């Protein structure tokens, strides 16, 4: 009976449950925070009968933040699953591949060169973070490329670790020149604080994420084939190089977008693919949406926790995710 475990029907059911859960947490997340609003008040505000203060809280603070958390989670989850499947390595993620440290460096450069709250900054910062992520990814691929061979996952990860170290040294050099406010921003950003919770940013991130997730979902059959190994995929008549590159660019684009507005959330990109693989099995048609929702749930949940339980200071969401998910990662490591 074991063969029956991962059927399409079951998978769709699980994804539907995840979707509902996501909405449920999102709704719950609307009520909690520094200012407590009762469910009735929130409902009234959404319908349009709120006071000015309630409008402000719901539409300008909570709703954008929740949307951001969901988008970042989806982006990270989907980019994680693409990377892990393409490289056929469980440890691959935007973080271990050094992409987030690349974005981090350019964000720091930005913080030093421009102020954190300028009008021009709205589009520049996400763009720079994206550029940083892409550069890091290209560098890693060039460095681990060897003529006439497949890129081995281990070499990719080791190169990623090394480059991550180099990037953080450079970041450190820049950090030394920061003043107190810049320092605080940089620190929070790198810990993953979901800072870009403003509609202006979301207007860019939402189509961006949807576009690439859509692309990945559309190509999910290709991923299924690529997952079998490059040789097999070639044998099955797939234009491996083209599909591989396209999907990888999509993965990098997704993670860079999330990193730019959310901060370092790469643990989501490592953990969620595993969890969803356990839930829905190896078919990427189910895996990609499952991993995306899983990411959204994790980030949203962590964010709700940070906003509900006060840890004495406003603690970035990323820290909670990291601390909670490292044990799982270590468990995976010991099993692999």
């Amino acid at each position, binding site marked *: 009976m074991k063969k029956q475990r991962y059927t399409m029907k079951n998978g769709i059911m699980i994804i539907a449950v995840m979707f509902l859960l996501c909405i449920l947490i999102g709704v719950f997340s609307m009520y909690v925070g520094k200012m407590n609003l009762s469910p009735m008040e929130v409902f009234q505000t959404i319908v349009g009968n709120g006071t000015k203060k309630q409008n402000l809280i719901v539409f300008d603070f909570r709703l954008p933040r929740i949307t951001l958390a969901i988008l970042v989670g989806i982006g990270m989850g989907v980019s994680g699953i693409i990377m892990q499947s393409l490289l056929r390595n469980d*440890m691959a993620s935007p*973080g*271990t591949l050094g992409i987030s440290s690349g974005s981090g460096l350019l964000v720091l450069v930005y913080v030093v060169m421009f102020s954190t709250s300028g009008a021009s900054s709205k589009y520049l910062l996400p763009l720079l973070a994206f550029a940083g992520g892409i550069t890091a990814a290209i560098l890693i691929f060039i*460095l681990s490329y060897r003529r006439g061979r497949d890129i*081995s996952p*281990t*070499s990719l*990860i*080791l*190169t990623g*670790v*090394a*480059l991550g*170290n*180099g990037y*953080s*040294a*450079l970041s*450190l*050099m820049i*950090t*030394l020149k*920061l003043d*107190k406010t810049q*320092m*605080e921003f940089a*620190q*929070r950003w*790198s*810990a993953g604080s979901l800072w870009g919770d403003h509609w202006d940013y979301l207007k860019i991130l939402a189509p961006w994420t949807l576009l690439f997730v859509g692309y990945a979902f559309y190509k999910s059959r290709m991923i299924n084939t690529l997952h079998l190994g490059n040789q097999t995929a070639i044998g099955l008549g797939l234009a491996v190089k083209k599909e591989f590159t396209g999907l990888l660019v999509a993965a990098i684009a997704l993670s860079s977008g999330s990193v730019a507005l959310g901060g370092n959330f790469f*643990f989501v990109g490592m953990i969620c693919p595993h969890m969803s693989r356990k839930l829905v099995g190896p078919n990427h048609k189910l895996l990609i949406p499952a991993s995306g929702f899983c990411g959204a749930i994790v980030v949203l949940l962590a964010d709700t926790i940070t906003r509900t339980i006060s*840890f*004495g*200071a*406003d*603690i*970035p969401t*990323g*820290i909670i995710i*990291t*601390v909670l998910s*490292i044990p799982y*990662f*270590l468990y995976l*490591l*010991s*099993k*692999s």
Partner: protein
Amino acid sequence: MIVKRDITKRNKKRKIKFSLYMLLGICFLAISFFCSISYGAADMNLKVAWGAVFQFNETIMEHQIIRTLRFPRTVADIIVGSSLAVAGAIMQGTTRNPLADSGLMGISSGATFAMAICLAFFPGRTYGETMLYTCLGAALATFMTYFFASVGKKSMSPQKLVLAGLSISMLFSALTSYIAIKYNIGQDLTYWTAGGTASAKWRELAMTAPVYLLSVAIAVTFSPSITVLSLGEEVATGLGIKTNLVKGISTVVVFLLTGVSVVIVGPIGFVGLLVPHIMRFFVGVDYRYIIPSCALYGAVFLVGADIFGRFINKPFETPLGIIFAVIGVPFFLYIARKQRREFE
């Protein structure tokens, strides 16, 4: 008999080669030592430096600078460089892992975490207490890294160790940034993390020097056993080495050496990776030679890097950690690549 004579002859040859390298290293160290105390924000010539060391005169300002600032700084460089290099060599030998380094194993992040706790909760701590806590932090992180790399069905592979080190580092740095944000000590911590010996004082050096000397002495005493252990655990057991004892002692030595250097300069990565590999290239794979030469050349490297850091962006100083990362990353990539070639 002929074979045996051949081996003794080769051993002798190697010994002579080793002594030559050591002699050369001492010369290098002496040169860099005098360079380090004479060059800096205020330049002095070698003669003044010489005078400050051997005919100290309190009324001369230069002599004062050298005695209170540059001299302790250089001594700190020496201690840190050679401790990190020896710690790296021991780790590479006992784990048979060419990628072992105190920074990559999460040790530095553990020590940084301990330092963050010290800065946040014990403002009135003494120097000895700081040292104790950072050593404990380093020990905790190493223990966790080794533990998680060794549990599981397969044995501990270098890649697994690096990944375990990575995740432990991430865990500790997440906790560190929590403390840093909550208690607003981010900037202090960053200055400490950047790694600089400029603030080294005699009193601190006097406390760390005995620990350093003792650990290096133990390391040298145990170097023959480490050589045997580097051949593989089964071989070592077969040759009558108490592997657990040697491993335990070398781990303690690694903690002590890393703790000492972390408390003086903060975490510097890659020294422990670079120096042993370079030394292995010159003196061979025998840890009886590698460990002493690492102690010597590690010091030379760090003093050199420190002088370099003072010059490259004058009058600002470039932190040691950054210099070593810039050299170390390409080197790490090279080794990772070479090692794969051997496995494939």
